[in-house]
């Protein structure tokens, strides 16, 4: 079957224009959740339908696409979305962060610092940071509009009261440019400092919830905290067992039934690159 029976990047031009409008509005009001008419995509909700639509609206034939799932380039979600755009948009794909112009990601920000001209697209399951604190959407919208975020701190207070420290370790709420509190999608809080002052454009798409929000380059993003319990990005207290990096976010991998384990970089491309560099250095 010829995939060119589809329009470029699957969605029709009118839909892409509608999404681009939402993206522009999102960029104009950093952190504000813009409603958009999310479409049915040929994949189930929860598999990145929001991110895919945003990526489709951003792609041009000259783009190079990278897709990350939990840091890895070779897991189901990443592979199938990459294939989807190879077939429907015929764009070049890559696993190298620095070579990509559009990066769709689930749950991680790459370790390599992003540069101007790159676009990072996040898949977002629940865009509303107040969702489990205030059930009424009419009320949360007002709270956003008036910047009434006392409730967000109640959540952090509960964490400290119960666990002795802020135990929220992913989807850690941030405040954008001193106004909107935003859910950064379920990235580990280790990645939160990379949200702010980032050179790349960051776009967030929630397909089921029909919301888009965005961070323009070099936006001020602050993770919420208490004066006596400041925000702390956390990671496993190890170095990567493959590349030896001590400053990356690690996955814990169980290797046998005896409970042996190893810690490896969750960003596979970063880890592989470092291993290759080390080998090249040893060969010289």
């Amino acid at each position, binding site marked *: 079957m010829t995939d060119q029976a589809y329009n470029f990047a699957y969605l029709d031009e009118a839909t892409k224009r509608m999404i681009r409008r939402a993206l522009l509005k999102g960029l104009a009001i950093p952190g504000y959740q813009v409603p958009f008419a999310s479409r049915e995509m040929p994949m189930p909700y929860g598999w990145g339908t929001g991110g895919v639509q945003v990526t489709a609206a951003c792609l041009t034939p000259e783009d190079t696409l990278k897709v990350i799932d939990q840091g890895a380039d070779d897991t189901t979600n990443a592979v199938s979305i990459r294939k989807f755009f190879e077939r429907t948009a015929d764009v070049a794909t890559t696993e190298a962060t620095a070579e990509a112009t559009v990066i769709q990601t689930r749950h991680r920000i790459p370790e390599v610092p992003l540069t101007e001209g790159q676009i990072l697209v996040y898949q977002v399951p629940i865009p509303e940071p107040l969702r489990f604190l205030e059930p009424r959407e009419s009320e949360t919208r*007002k709270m956003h509009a*008036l910047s*009434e975020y*006392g*409730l967000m*701190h*109640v959540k952090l*207070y*509960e964490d*400290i*009261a*119960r666990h002795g420290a802020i135990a929220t370790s992913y989807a850690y709420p941030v405040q954008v440019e001193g106004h909107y509190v935003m859910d950064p999608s379920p990235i580990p809080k280790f990645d939160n400092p990379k949200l702010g002052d980032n050179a790349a454009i960051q776009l967030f798409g929630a397909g089921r919830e029909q919301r888009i929000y965005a961070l323009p380059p070099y936006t001020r993003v602050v993770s919420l*905290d*208490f*004066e*006596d*319990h400041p925000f702390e990005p956390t990671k496993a207290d190890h170095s990567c067992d493959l590349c030896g990096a001590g400053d990356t976010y690690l996955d814990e991998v169980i290797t046998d039934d005896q409970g042996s384990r190893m810690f490896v970089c969750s960003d596979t491309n970063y880890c592989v690159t470092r291993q290759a560099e080390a080998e090249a250095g040893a060969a010289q």
Partner: protein
Amino acid sequence: MTQDQPLLSVRDLAKMYGGRIGCTDVSFDLWPGEVLGIVGESGSGKSTLLGCLSGQLAADRGQILYRGRDTRQMSEPERRLLSRTEWAFVHQNPRDGLRMGVSAGGNVGERLMAVGARHYGDIRETATDWLGRVEISAERIDDRPRQFSGGMQQRLQIARNLVTSPKLVFMDEPTGGLDVSVQARLLDLLRGLVRDMGLSVIIVTHDLAVARLLADRLMVMKDGHVIEHGLTDQVLDDPQAAYTQLLVSSVLQV
């Protein structure tokens, strides 16, 4: 604030539900430190009136001047700011006024955090202090309200509302649904807090005993109208309107 100006001044307030009257022609002044009781039977417009005064319902006519400013003309952000700083609302059912999934300390701390408190230790200290003031032991600070008895929940709701030292407190049947001995303790507590903090209170109740204990002045409502208005003892001991006479004589004597 000067003592020669009423805290709340209401003129010709009316609220209609379609063609039916919620409450109408309500006018009164509330002075700093004063407790005003609103009594009447179910459906007489008490709760509608309280809702209009506290900004939860939009009144159709009239003026509500809070410290000289008309709250009906205020923008919503201003009104919401008032209702989490200088005003407080105690619901009849503590479930409406508490966050049931949040610990007692978090419930008390919410208003503090809503006005910008960002120091965990300070918030916790204030919450502990307030739990003590409403006779809840400090070790229950991390328990959820679900694990509390009805009376404790109501006391927790009061602590949660008073923690930011409001000037004006609205109470909707605060003792409804509690048994008599718990009611008595709660009333005792409320009376103490009102005196100590110099609160102005508007309390809606159908229980004349509560009104007698707490209120300085009483308004009697029937069918959306205020039919009698005066000092509590005067209204209860020498009722003028026929309905008030009926109301007073309907109280069961033990």
